[in-house]
Every structure is written in structure tokens, then in C-alpha cells.
């Protein structure tokens, strides 16, 4: 049974790593579009927005690669979980204000727009669950 959990953790690490590398690649393909995308949320302004738009893909890359290093799994999963909670809070804020906007998550690779809503919230929740499991498992 322990071996099954070990394989499950390995699978979760690989899947999360792939998801965040794809997300970062999409943002790096068109940084200006990503900057415009997150400005539509109306949460960050000025320098904070510019720094977040430039820095976020790098944080995603580092956290994703960290999942591949055994000693860095827990900190990386902790960081990814925190980012996912932040994304969900931002989307929740946009939903509460009745904003209709593109979530700027993965769709920049040409997969089409994903409008902020319950679908994107549940998608992030589905990604958050393995991140939390990797953070808290022994």
C-alpha cells in the first residue's frame, strides 16, 4: 500500500510539474497579453502589476522544477498551493464584481479563451488538491 502511495505522489508531482510548465510557457509566449489579462482583474496596479506579470511565469517554472527534486517537493507544493489559492481568490473577486474576463491561465497557448467562472474555479481546485496532498503528506 505504501508503494502505491509513493507512485501516486510521483504521478501527482509529474502532472503538477507539466501543468505549471505549460502555464508558464503560455505566459512567456506573450507577456504583454498576460500583462493586459491580469490588469483586467483590477486588483494590482502600476509597478505591482508589472512586476507580477513579469515574475509570475518564473515562479511557476521554479516551483514546477522543484517538484522534480525530492528534497524540494514540499516547499514547491506549498508555493504552488499558495499560488493556486491566490488565483482562486482573484477569480472569486472578479466573479463577485460581475466581471466577464479571460482568466489568463492556460489559454495563451492557443487553446481558446477560458472565461472566469465556476469552471475555472473548479479546475484550480482540482489542481490544488494534489498540491495540498503533496504539502501535507508524510
Amino acid at each position, binding site marked *: 500500500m505504501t508503494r502505491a502511495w509513493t507512485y501516486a505522489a510521483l504521478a501527482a508531482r509529474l502532472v503538477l510539474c507539466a501543468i505549471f510548465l505549460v502555464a508558464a510557457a503560455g505566459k512567456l509566449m506573450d507577456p504583454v497579453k498576460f500583462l*493586459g489579462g491580469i490588469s483586467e482583474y483590477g486588483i494590482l496596479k502600476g509597478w505591482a502589476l508589472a512586476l507580477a506579470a513579469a515574475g509570475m511565469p518564473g515562479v511557476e517554472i521554479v516551483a514546477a522544477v522543484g517538484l522534480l527534486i525530492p528534497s524540494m517537493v514540499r516547499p514547491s507544493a506549498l508555493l504552488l498551493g499558495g499560488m493556486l489559492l491566490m488565483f482562486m481568490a482573484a477569480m472569486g473577486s472578479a466573479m463577485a464584481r460581475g466581471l466577464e474576463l479571460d482568466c489568463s491561465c492556460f489559454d495563451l497557448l492557443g487553446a481558446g479563451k477560458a472565461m472566469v467562472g465556476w469552471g475555472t474555479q473548479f479546475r484550480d481546485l482540482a489542481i490544488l488538491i494534489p498540491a495540498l496532498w503533496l504539502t501535507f503528506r508524510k
Partner: protein
Amino acid sequence: MQKYRRPSLRDWGFALLLAMLGALLGLGINSLSPRGFDLSLAAGQVASQNLP
């Protein structure tokens, strides 16, 4: 039976370190990439609601 444990102070510290390293990496990629944007210009444009 799976057992769980809370992240230690070391885990939180490394998570913060990874976040800072990642932010620096992102800023570096943005400044080196031909697709990247000028941070000060972008900050100013966003402040004036005049996005590219």
C-alpha cells in the same frame, strides 16, 4: 494508513526562497526576451489605463 504532517519552518523558508528565485528568473527572462515588456513603461501605461 497515510500520515500527515504540517510543513515545517524549513519548508516555509524554502518556499519563500523558491518564490524569490522564480520572480528573479521571470524578471530576467522578461528583460532578455524580445517579447518582453519594459517594466517602467508598462507600470506607467497600466496606471494611466492605456494598455498595449
